[in-house]
């Protein structure tokens, strides 16, 4: 380990909080998705740091699964963004506050 684990955790916690703030504060759907990306990357940093701490490869394998999950999530959520834009003509999250059925 070139740096203490606590510093890696501090970096990743700061990144996670920034992503969470982006999700909570922004109203554009694209910016909300970008916030989700930032949070997932922060988790990946934690996993790689843990992998280096315990000298095991499992943490890095979890990051690969995280990346696969992210690409699946991004593809389907961007398809939904296109769908919602065609449906209501806007991407402000406040426009989608009603439920049908």
């Amino acid at each position, binding site marked *: *380990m*070139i*740096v203490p684990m606590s*510093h*890696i955790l501090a*970096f990743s916690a*700061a*990144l996670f909080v*920034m*992503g969470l*703030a*982006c999700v909570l*504060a*922004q109203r*554009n759907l*694209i*910016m909300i*998705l*970008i*916030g989700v*990306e*930032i949070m997932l*990357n922060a988790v*990946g*940093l934690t996993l*790689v*740091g843990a*992998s*280096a701490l315990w*000298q095991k*490869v*499992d943490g*890095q*394998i979890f*990051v*690969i*699964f995280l*990346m*696969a*999950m*992210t*690409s*699946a*999530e*991004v*593809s*389907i959520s*961007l*398809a*939904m*963004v*296109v*769908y919602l*834009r*065609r*449906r209501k003509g806007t*991407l402000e999250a406040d426009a989608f506050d009603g439920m049908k059925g």
Partner: protein
Amino acid sequence: MASAIFYILGFTALAATALCITRRNPVHAVVYLVNALFALALMFYQLGAPLVAAWEVIIYAGAVMVLFLFIIMMLELAPASAEMQGPGWRRWGPVLLLSLVILGCTLALLGIQADQDGVPAFWVSPRAFGAALFDQYALAVQVVSFQLLYAAVGAFYVGKGSLRRRTQGEETP
């Protein structure tokens, strides 16, 4: 030296993320996020994960962010000229600075021995990584591949639904 580069990269990633989440223009946000991802990839490399670092650049910065840019440009989400006021260095100054810091860190990392600090560096070669991935986690790989298939089918369904709704609306207004 290596730890100093790690801290520099960490604060670069934090600064790029902070700039990213405060942008109004989604294109600017994506560019700053690409910077943050490059810094994170170098941090992964320093923590002994070269394959994960490469995939961070290839998948995240290369595929996912380009997909974001595609959607932003397809839906014309970027404001036309409202944000383009002011002197030019305020537009490209921060991103140029961040990119130069990351480039400098990359060049500095090239000249550093892996075990310079006296500690044997933890380093997972792609061979060891693949052996562990396809030996211990073979079932998980299959589950993840199914998940990608579901995502592709779901994205196709959602996209086709919006297409069908639009053509129906044109036929029977």
